[in-house]
């Protein structure tokens, strides 16, 4: 049985080198901007300033608020994701599962301004629920403040957690289902003894991912926070980098953010990494793969109700986008040459960075140790996209016209940012695959490229494609990186959305958001369809 700090898959030495190369590339990608900022800030950077910043009440308040809201958002997102996940797995209708999976893939792609407006349209003081409660003569609480921030962060991240855990569980050996059924395990007990054991390993990683996303959240925090008392460090970084151009202060704030959030992520990711529970079940799976858990109740009311609530919570804001988008004459908006060009740009960047991210994830997953895998790519997230882009601009402008290289930089930075997601999605599948097929591969002497071609890739088509689609979606929705590089030459869909919002054209902007959502919906849908078509090793998880 593999110890947890061993690589997931037996490997040749060159794949080890490849993995090291990827790690080095990541380090260069993330650290160069810091060095560049440091060199440039040299004049304005004084270390007595560091003390000043660390005692500045505005900074301390921002830091405290960042940590509190990120911790609460993480706990809430994961705490709510688990019952939703249980309910999802208890529903036997495949179409229900597919629909939920598709919907839950979408929130992360929405530009923050669009998501915040959609959330407000549903939950705001003049939103759908407020209108409903007004009819009923009862009050509707204000969302502005910590509540609104948490609402938005759960909207973004609860579905993400469900998706990753669900993907993890899909690679659970089918024997577990069989065993649980034979033992008559049901409901919570079954979850505690079977599923919980499998996802336990991913909880730390997913939590650290969500913590980061929330700690570096910016637009929704300001928009729904009700005022500057809800300010994250990211706002202060943005302010000093973009608005004040005070590089020294920006650098110090960035280092502070990296130190604090980095520590938390390390703690979360290095939590107990228990072995995949009971992998000694690993017998031939062919016989069990079509095993149907017959005694699972066809429809449990409470699971169904919970699932409907979760579905509405995530779905209603999309409903608002669809209604607004459709009323904006979408076909006419979509057919504009500028929109077609931006769509093409977004798709090309998305495919390229998804390809890179998946490739990197495979190389890393194939050879790096589990711990490296858990920590390194997530740490790449600590570096705010605006810092990476600004730092790289400063670096390459010495040699070339940086804006000519913008597309390449956007692709690489997007890929690095999608990497942790892709790894989370594929790692459990790889682990399971190794436990179950490793011995057979060894016995047959399959290794190197032929092992990937004959064994790994065919078996793990679904998680790979899902990871690819997720990376594509993330890149498609990215605005942070493009914000700095974007110009008339590099216009992506989110860029165009912001640009429309900035010129009174919020209707057109929502129509574009609808286009963006449809693109991601199709990409994730296609990935699922394609992966399930003829044959991943298990036709469906249930």
């Amino acid at each position, binding site marked *: 049985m593999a110890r947890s700090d061993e690589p997931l898959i037996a490997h040749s030495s060159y794949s080890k080198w490849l993995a090291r190369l990827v790690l080095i590339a990541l380090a260069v990608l993330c650290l160069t901007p810091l060095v560049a900022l440091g060199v440039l800030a040299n004049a304005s950077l004084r270390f007595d300033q560091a003390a000043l910043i660390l005692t500045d009440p505005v900074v301390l308040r921002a830091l405290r608020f960042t940590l509190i809201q990120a911790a609460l958002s993480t706990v809430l997102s994961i705490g709510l994701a688990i019952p939703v996940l249980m309910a999802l797995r208890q529903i036997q209708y495949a179409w229900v599962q597919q629909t939920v999976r598709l919907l839950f893939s979408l929130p992360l792609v929405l530009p923050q301004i669009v998501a915040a407006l959609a959330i407000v349209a549903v939950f705001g003081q003049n939103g759908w629920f407020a209108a409903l409660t007004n009819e009923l003569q009862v009050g509707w609480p204000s969302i502005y403040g910590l509540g609104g921030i948490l609402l938005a962060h759960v909207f973004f991240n609860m579905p993400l957690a469900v998706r990753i855990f669900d993907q993890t569980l899909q690679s659970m050996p089918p024997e577990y289902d069989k065993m649980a059924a034979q033992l008559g395990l049901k409901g919570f007990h079954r979850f505690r003894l079977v599923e919980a054991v499998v996802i336990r390993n991913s909880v730390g990683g997913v939590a650290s991912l969500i913590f980061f996303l929330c700690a570096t959240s910016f637009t929704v925090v300001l928009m729904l926070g009700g*005022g500057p008392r809800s300010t994250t460090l990211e706002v202060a970084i943005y302010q000093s980098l973009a608005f004040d151009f005070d590089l020294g202060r920006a650098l110090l704030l960035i280092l502070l953010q990296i130190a604090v959030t980095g520590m938390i992520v390390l703690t979360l990711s290095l939590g107990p990494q228990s072995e995949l529970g009971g992998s000694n079940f690993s017998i031939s799976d062919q016989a069990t793969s079509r095993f149907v858990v017959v005694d699972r109740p066809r429809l449990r009311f409470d699971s169904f109700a919970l699932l409907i609530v979760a579905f509405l919570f995530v779905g209603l804001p999309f409903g608002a986008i669809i209604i607004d988008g459709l009323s904006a004459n979408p076909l006419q908006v979509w057919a504009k040459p500028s929109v077609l060009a931006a769509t093409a740009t977004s798709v090309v960047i998305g495919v390229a960075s998804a390809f890179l991210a998946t490739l990197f994830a495979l190389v890393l997953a194939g050879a790096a140790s589990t711990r490296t895998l858990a920590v390194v790519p997530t740490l790449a997230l600590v570096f705010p996209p605006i810092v990476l882009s600004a730092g790289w601009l400063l670096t390459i402008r010495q040699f070339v016209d940086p804006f000519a290289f913008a*597309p390449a930089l956007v*692709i690489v930075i997007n890929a690095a940012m999608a990497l942790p997601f892709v790894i989370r999605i594929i790692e459990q599948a790889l682990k399971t695959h190794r436990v179950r097929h490793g011995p057979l591969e060894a016995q047959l002497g399959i290794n190197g490229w032929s092992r990937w071609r004959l064994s790994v890739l065919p078996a793990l088509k679904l998680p790979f494609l899902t990871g690819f689609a997720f990376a594509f979606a993330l890149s498609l929705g990215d605005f942070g990186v493009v914000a700095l590089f974007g110009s008339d030459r590099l216009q992506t869909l989110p860029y165009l959305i912001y*640009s429309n919002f*900035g010129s009174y054209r919020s209707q057109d902007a929502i129509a574009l958001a609808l286009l963006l959502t449809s693109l991601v919906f199709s990409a994730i849908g296609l990935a699922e369809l394609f992966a399930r078509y003829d044959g991943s090793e298990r036709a469906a998880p249930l």
Partner: protein
Amino acid sequence: MRIKHMRAFGMMLIAAVSLAATQAKAENGTLTVYTYDSFVADWGPGPQVEAAFEAQCDCDLEFVSAADGVALLNRLRLEGGNGRADIVLGLDTNLTEEATAAGFFVEHGQTLSETSVPGGWDDKFFLPFDYGYFAVIYDSETISEPPTSMAEFLAADASNKIVIQDPRTSTPGLGLMLWLREIYGDEWEEALAKLNERTLTVTPGWSEAYGLFTNGEVPMVLSYTTSPAYHILAEEIDRYKAATFEEGHYMQIEVAGITTKGADNPLSTVFMEFMVSSGFQSIIPETNWMLPVADTGAELDPAFLNAIPEKALLLAPETVAAQRKQWVDEWLGVMSR
């Protein structure tokens, strides 16, 4: 525009391959103008300005855009003076002090007789091309009796809230802060405290605030006196109106300047002259939704009539540059309560 977008698409496909091949050849060469996004958008003044200028100069006018005025200045800083810009168009008076101090610009050398902005203009480096006034825009279907002064607005019942922008990240947010500062001076803390009670939320930029407003979430928003004209002329909606305040309205003046690189391009001066002529000025009101600084050759559409308040307020750029940090801290202190 079409050609530009095709080019943008082509750029993607060849990714790293740089700007080669893009310059069209014209008799008198190329003039490169950095400006903000909404200026060059399909619906902005850019396409018409390009056509009008190219028709008279027999040259190629090339726009390069950044997100907004602040991003424009940052782009200059990031390029460290080695950029391609001959002219930068779209900074406002809150940014000119820093831009001049950084040494990116040369004197424009224009006589200022063509231009008129309220309060006068005598900057040697920058020439104004349009201006506007900040205002509280309200939804007349919710608010029937709008406030007639800042004092009345701040003192009004807090149930009708406003959404404003953060002065740390947004130009209108900075404008509101300076507006209050100009009216109340050192005694502005009380005004800020009242504003805090009137505020539903503070957004990072104008777009988020205006989105919340047109979404129907909030009946008031900080925007420009010209905003209602957009809704009337482009959407035929007249429910959104600007509240006129007795104390006067704070101004935003948008300017352009010639860079040190542009000083060597004879087209730069030609463009600056063109910018304050009616050929350029007539395009501005209904594409950039700001007020012209010179004769447009025609009357302004009546939709703009309410956009010009009697009293204009503006702090000197050097005062703003010197005091901004201090004021933002004071603003933060009160608004964070």
